[in-house]
């Protein structure tokens, strides 16, 4: 359960204040599949960053699972990012020095889990995302689709309640993109809240709820009849 109340985020360009988010009120129930669409500069990525606690609003309240998170300390926010939120990025953001398995393991390592338990979880994830053959390969040796699968495996390894995906298919061709989307949708089917930012209308239309943004404001918010 996500509840945003009067969230505002401004950036300064010279002496001019630009509203990236202007008084946003939004409620997303647990297990929803939401797409956020809009032209670039509409504030959709900023909204996603605030939802993922990577960015702080200038004002407003953000409650996650009935808990006010805006006032938490940096360390507590890091813990929430670690345990409740999974990120999937357009450019994958894998650590180039680490193998696929090590990339997937990272959030577990950060959480302080002992090594033996980590190995079991990583093994399961590699199995689930069909990456067993590529486990010891570095990102540079993987195809785009495989890289995004590693990224999704990493985002889900902590079993977060919310997955935030920022243009997850932006760097992939149509077919691979569709495969990646169905992987994410599988997660949604298993109860995870899925929030996808995209400017691809076709992709956005797959979500059960579509939010349209422009100039830092929510323009449309509609449920998909077919969803």
């Amino acid at each position, binding site marked *: 359960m996500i509840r945003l109340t009067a969230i505002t985020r401004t950036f300064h360009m010279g002496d001019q204040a630009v509203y990236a988010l202007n008084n946003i009120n939004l409620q997303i129930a647990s297990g929803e599949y939401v797409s956020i669409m809009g032209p670039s500069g509409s504030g959709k990525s900023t909204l996603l*960053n605030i939802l*993922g606690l*990577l*960015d702080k609003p200038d004002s407003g309240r953000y409650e996650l699972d009935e808990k006010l998170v805006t006032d938490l300390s*940096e*360390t507590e926010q*890091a*813990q929430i*990012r*670690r*345990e409740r939120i999974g*990120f999937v*990025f357009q*450019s994958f*953001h894998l*650590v180039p*020095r*680490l193998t696929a398995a090590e990339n997937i393991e*990272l*959030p577990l*390592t*950060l*959480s*302080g889990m*002992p*090594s033996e338990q980590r190995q079991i979880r990583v093994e399961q994830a590699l199995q689930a995302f069909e990456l067993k053959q590529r486990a010891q390969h570095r990102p540079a040796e993987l195809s785009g689709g495989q890289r995004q699968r590693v990224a999704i495996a*990493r*985002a889900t390894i*902590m079993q977060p309640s919310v997955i935030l995906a920022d243009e997850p298919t932006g760097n992939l061709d149509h077919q691979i993109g569709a495969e990646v989307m169905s992987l994410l949708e599988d997660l949604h089917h298993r109860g995870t809240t899925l929030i996808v930012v995209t400017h691809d209308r076709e992709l956005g239309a797959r979500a059960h709820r579509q939010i349209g943004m422009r100039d830092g404001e929510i323009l449309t918010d509609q449920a998909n009849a077919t969803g």
Partner: protein
Amino acid sequence: MRLVDTVQTSFKTVLSYRIRSLLIILAMALGVAAVVVLTALGDGARNYVINQFSSIGTNLLVVLPGRAETSGAFLGAVLGQTPRDLTLKDAQLIGRLPQVRRYAPLNVGEAELSAANRLRAVTVLGSNVHLIPIRHMVLAQGSFLAHGTENNAQIVLGAKIAREFFPRTQAIGQRVRLGDSRFLVSGVLMSQGETMGYNTDEIVIIPIGHAQVMFNTTSLFRILIEAKSHSEIEPAKQAILATVKQSHDGEEDITVITQDAILSTFNRILQALTLAVAGIAAISLIVAGILVMNVMLVAVSQRTAEIGLLKAIGASSVDIRRLFFTEAVLLSLAGAILGFLLGQFGSLMLRLTFPQLPAWPPVWASMAGITVALITGILASMLPASKAAKLDAVNALGKK
């Protein structure tokens, strides 16, 4: 994040940037090695000089005629007088002092030594029976002025002289001519090589009486004195000054040098030298520290996207800071250990190359080198680590 994982992750990072890591470790290692080798050299030189100086005698005092005035008017100079000579009588008076174990008057000159159709100029020491023990010389064969023979025309040859003149025959008992007098070879010195720039292998020793006749003098070059014990050195010096002053009509016109004072002066000077050299070497450690800082700062900007990602997947600022900090400490530690080993190896090479130089690196220097390396490494990593920790995740992620 658990400590073991932090260290392991940092270790992997160090390994994955192989060339960068090697260069930092090398810079650090050279700094530490420089400290170790240079202090080994300095301390070796100090020990060498001290050993050399100790080997010329024990509880030694040396009396020189004349006095170096640093202030005041010297009446004798106005009247055109030279300082009074040091005489055998002075030596005998000194010999009666209770603080003195034994004394050896000394005259030095050059004369031609000839025997068995050979001829060469030699340095001649004129002294008494005590010279040999006081100066820690050792007779390989024979004796010198044994009891009751103080005025006999005896001569002791240095090892090399004996070898040159009597290569095949026994030197003892041979007659030699020194200057215009004939002497009986009564002893041969053991070869001791050079000490304090003065080679006892190429000297001859004759009784002081004969030397004074040969060089036509009544004054002494030096008087060597051995005090009864270490604690008697200073009282002996005062007693000698007082005695000679009295016999020289109240004029204090001699100089007494104690081996102890010279020894401690040398010790101080060479220790200061060692410290100075170590200090100079330590500068290279600071330079290495700054290099670590530079490289880590570059690493932070190179890995900006990675830091952003780590934050996104739940790393706190503390985790990030620790990761970078650990990385720098690992690099410094590896550098310090490698440098210590290099330094030990370098010192070993020095000792093998110059066997007479005891170039052992002092323990304090090795400890200080390693400690300074670690401290500079740690200090140098603080700025980059906190810069990494403060990176804004959103901006960091935006960078490729």
